[in-house]
């Protein structure tokens, strides 16, 4: 252990919800996109699932909202070190979208893409089984544009760069396709509890 002289850190109580290397951001919700926030109206938003599925499909805002509502109440964790506790997102479980398109047995991964060209690669198992959402509400209000509104992907059990803002679609694949940050040296999966921040972790 490489102890830093004179460093004690903040007073702390053990928080079992805080993954290793993270700190509690409290009320803050830092914005960490590397691109210009797009001017994307709900009427211009669409969400498409294609690739290894039985029936590729595109939803517009109203069609997506016609699916059964589903909320996430819990925590989120950013690779840059902050975690945010007790957040509430409203939207639709990705399972409801997958029920329509029916993934093929050969599908193992997804590549998420945004309306701005951002991409993130994920194992299919990380976005099925009630573990991922398309979210358009935060704390009961429309999701702000700088946080990915009108709608973002939400995969809260992984570092938040996987939760692509301004989500435009998912392509199902039979292999892992690195997305923007995965090609940029970030870990291919990004599990906060295993501190999978960068490639090689």
């Amino acid at each position, binding site marked *: 252990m*490489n102890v830093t002289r004179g460093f004690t850190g903040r007073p702390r109580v053990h928080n079992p919800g805080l993954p290793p290397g993270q700190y509690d951001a409290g009320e803050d919700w830092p914005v960490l996109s590397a691109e210009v926030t797009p001017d994307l109206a709900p009427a211009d938003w669409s969400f498409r699932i294609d690739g290894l599925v039985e029936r590729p499909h595109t939803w517009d805002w109203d069609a997506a909202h016609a699916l059964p509502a589903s909320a996430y109440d819990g925590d989120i964790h950013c690779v840059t070190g902050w975690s945010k506790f007790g957040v509430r997102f409203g939207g639709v479980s990705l399972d409801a979208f997958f029920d329509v398109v029916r993934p093929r047995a050969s599908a193992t991964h997804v590549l998420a893409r945004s309306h701005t060209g951002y991409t993130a690669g994920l194992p299919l198992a990380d976005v099925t089984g009630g573990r991922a959402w398309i979210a358009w509400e935060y704390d009961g209000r429309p999701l702000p544009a700088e946080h990915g509104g009108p709608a973002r992907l939400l995969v809260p059990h992984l570092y938040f760069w996987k939760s692509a803002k301004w989500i435009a679609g998912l392509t199902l694949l039979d292999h892992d396709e690195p997305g923007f940050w995965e090609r940029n040296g970030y870990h291919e999966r990004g599990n906060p509890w295993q501190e999978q921040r960068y490639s090689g972790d």
Partner: protein
Amino acid sequence: MPARIAVSEQVAAVWQTATVAEIRRETPRAATFRLAVPGWAGHLPGQHLMLRLTAPDGYTAQRHYSIASAPDDSGHIELTLDHVPDGEVSGWFHTVARPGDTVEVRGPLSGFFAWPGDRPALLLGAGSGIVPLMSMVRHHRRLGLTVPLRMLVSARSPEELIYAAELGAETTAVFTRSAPPGVPVGRMAAAHVAPLLAGSPAGGWEAYVCGSNGFAEHASRLLVAAGQPVDRIRIERFG
């Protein structure tokens, strides 16, 4: 969105010991910490690193910081840190750190905000958002590059303008609270950005924006309004 810039990622996973070599005050709130990192593999201007402090009971605090220095072969890198109120890591640097102390770093990280010096660069920063941009300016000078480079920086006052003595003709400073005699006080505005885009070099600018999220939103909108393509704007936000 803009494409990433290819950089080596072999060293990103390795924590290295860095020794504080020198501390220089920049402004009442900001100081530069020069670190000796013998195994440093080099970086591109604009990249950042992850820095870790460890308490005696094993507790660690880690933060991302932009690298202020230009790439060189000295085995040193420089970080310029604001003293954040109640800052756990910046507080240690500003009140405890002295030459000879060791910390841990890993990186360099991210090729997205990097600038290799190959394309005309238009740099917009506010506060400590000038730090990664200064690495680019220093790189430009150090190599005697002729590719166009312009910087527009915002600070609360002349006293709080980091690297003030080092800024040259490539830089225009905007002051939001108090300014030298004859210089208007105000927010960065279209009138500052428009002339830079009107005078775009052949092939246009690659724009780099760094600062608080509020500044990043404001400055990137100014750029878009002035005609800069969104896929040629790279943003580094301090959360």
